[in-house]
């Protein structure tokens, strides 16, 4: 396994210029997640309108993989239906757990396929999933709060 399979150009680009990395002051739900084994942290805001994710913004510290993955995730999931986003998330999680057997469906995952190499480095899977899990948690919480009210 070569380093380049992990650190694809796309990843290093997102790492240097992350997207949506500035917390928006308005949101439906904010969550804070940590990766206890390395200390990386992320704060993520999600805005839910009806069945749409209209905004995701975040801030945090972390390695290139976690930063790039969160950047890619936010870009990919904003503006789509919640169902669709959850399907994408599912698909990405499977890719991460594939131990290098999958290369990822570019139709569904777009830039996120660049993270396929991570699945061969078990210790890094958590890095790649940090932002995605924060999104999942924030959205689920936002939904159940809406339900509770509604």
């Amino acid at each position, binding site marked *: 396994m070569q380093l380049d399979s992990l650190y694809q150009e796309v990843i290093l680009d997102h790492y240097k210029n992350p997207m949506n990395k500035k917390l928006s002051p308005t949101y439906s739900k904010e969550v804070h997640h*940590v990766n*206890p084994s390395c200390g990386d942290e992320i704060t993520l805001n999600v805005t839910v309108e009806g069945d749409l994710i209209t905004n995701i913004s975040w801030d945090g510290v972390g390695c290139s993989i976690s930063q790039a993955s969160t950047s890619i995730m936010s870009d990919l999931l904003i503006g789509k239906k919640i169902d669709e986003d959850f399907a994408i998330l599912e698909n990405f999680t499977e890719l991460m757990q594939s131990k290098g057997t999958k290369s990822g469906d570019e139709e569904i995952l777009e830039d996120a396929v660049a993270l396929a190499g991570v699945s061969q480095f*078990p*210790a890094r899977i958590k890095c790649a999933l940090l932002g995605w899990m924060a999104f999942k948690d924030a959205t689920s919480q936002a939904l159940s709060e809406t339900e509770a009210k509604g």
Partner: protein
Amino acid sequence: MSMLDVASIKKDFPILSKKMRNDGKLIYLDSGATSQKPNIVLEAERRFYSEHNAAVHRGAHLLAEEASEAYEGARATVAKFIGADVEEVVFTKSATESINLIAYSFGNSLPGSRFALQPGDRIVLSEMEHHANLIPWQQLAKRTGAEITWFPVTDQGRLDLSDIDSIISTKTKIVAITHQSNVLGTINPLEALVKRTHDVGAVFVLDACQSVPHFAVDVKKLGIDFLAFSGHKALGPTGVGIFWGKFEHLQSMEPFLTGGSMIESVTMTDATWAPAPRKFEAGVPNMAQAVGLAAALDYLTKIGMDKVEAHEHALTKYALEKFSTLRDVSIIGPTNTQMRGGVISFTIEGIHPHDAGQVLDQHGIAVRTGHHCAWPLMRKMHVVGTTRASFYIYNDTSDIDALIDGIEYAQKYFKV
């Protein structure tokens, strides 16, 4: 009689070719205390150390990855062996630690938690418990004001369940009982106990030290809440035990040992916990021992736990018949094979267990003598101690014949 191929099994255990006193051979009948280890277990440990050793969950480097994979793989093997989910399995150093973990975790619970005990609450045990499933509960009772009550044991060495509804009452919070007695061989009827425990809203803790190594145990089928066993009695290394708990319990329980790797976040004055099972595994774990235990369970699975059970059942039947021909020898425990495992405790009229053990040792026969860490049971059975023979997969009828001959020799030697 579906016997195992003991001759070929014996070859897997290097210690069984050891030369004993006077160059005699080893007849190991003390597996109830600790089992012997097949080569494959020693090899698994050696391989871990010489190929993958690193602190798990703590490094990005290749060895750390491999060590984590080996350790988590071992967890999956244990889970499968007892029918559990993988995140329900916690590695401890021993069954003793596992039971203490439960007792201390309950003791650490905040008021209002379903695990918090109050004065007047009851912990139900039995008179045949090993000290490991007795003293931690006594201590918990002392710390919380709860009371210990217990099922008595009959003269035949069975649990007396006639008062089950008053012994397990609405005041009961915990019922902790052994699956199989390490002294009597008695296998306890769990169904009624677990049902009554749950009817009163209590949790059921199973001491499975003498069952998991000897017959198939499925935690889901048994419907219990917690289980403990030791690796060293199941062909595994010393220094590793298992604590199993239903995941919903593990989630709401307080941690026991605290330190590295079990945290979510830490400041100088406070900390939050990682999800189970990590919450219960503070520090660099007993990685090589976990891997060794997994190798042991794989070995048992390959033989087949049903075959292990049938083999021990047959040996026990054979031994009980032989014992019945002996003069002045009393079995402490059931004399039939109904709900009974391969542990036979006995006394010889006029010969103290320690002296009996010594004579047997002279013939290379390793048995245990004394109170077997079950002192209250000794008093109940009106004995100072017993001599105990316990069987495992590497024993055959010739070992029992040797035992019987040894007992007769002891009677002659001490002229009783």
